[in-house]
């Protein structure tokens, strides 16, 4: 595994609650949740930079909405 560096993270109560909820729901450590979020954000950003679009689709309702990523 690659060398790791430590950082201090300041989160609001709401952010910490969300992190704890995701950590529990996904069965991951809080560090792993944040690592996954970073990977996902980087992947989405790189695809949008290539001109691709991100959509959420509800097959049951036949709805499709583009997610605007800034």
């Amino acid at each position, binding site marked *: *595994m690659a060398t790791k560096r430590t950082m201090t993270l300041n989160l609001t109560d709401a952010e910490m609650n969300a992190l704890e909820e995701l950590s529990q729901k*996904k069965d*991951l*450590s809080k560090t792993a949740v944040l690592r*996954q979020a*970073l990977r*996902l954000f*980087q*992947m989405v950003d*790189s695809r949008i930079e290539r001109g691709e679009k991100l959509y959420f689709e509800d097959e049951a309702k036949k709805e499709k909405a583009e997610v605007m990523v800034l």
Partner: protein
Amino acid sequence: MSASVVQIIRRSDEASVDAKLLGGIKPTDLLVVEGEWAPERSVVMQELLQQGVSRDKWPQSLHWDWRKKSPQLKLLESAGYGIVCDKRWQGVMLTKTASHFAMLDKDKGKPLVYVDYLEVAPWNWVIPEIGREGEFRGIGSLLFWRAVKQSQEEGFYGRVGLHALPQSEPFYEKGCGMTPVGRDASKQNLLYFELSRQQAERFLKEGD
């Protein structure tokens, strides 16, 4: 790049041979891989054409080009592994860790290691129709084992998912103990397989 010593089997005399299992391979490594493999792919294709082997019996990764897959390794969610023996790349695998989630009921929605591509070198392909017996075996299993270990290291409990080429379906179902989940219309109708955390434990135990 990380390296560990593993054993693969030389088919000619069934001897165990030391090989290096490499992690953290870079986009430039994939250029080398394709540089080594492309000429052999061409030879295989010529032999298949000369022998008049029907297309359904051709190796289904014959058209792959690892040079085109190399940009993927620039992303944090991607990882590359390879096996080197006799100073040649014997097999390569690319995995993803953030864009695929478990579909099996018990762990549905939880992250897993997704095997995006796994291929062994063309000189290791077994193609009886043109008398090819393959130089080494055990490479695909070792790479799959590495994916399961990666999943454990990531905190994903060994969960692994992949879409298999039809010729590889028996390997993943019987050889690796994965569950066939269903055909995926968004992935050329390939069969999606998943290894649950319980199956991962069994797979690793049997491999010991």
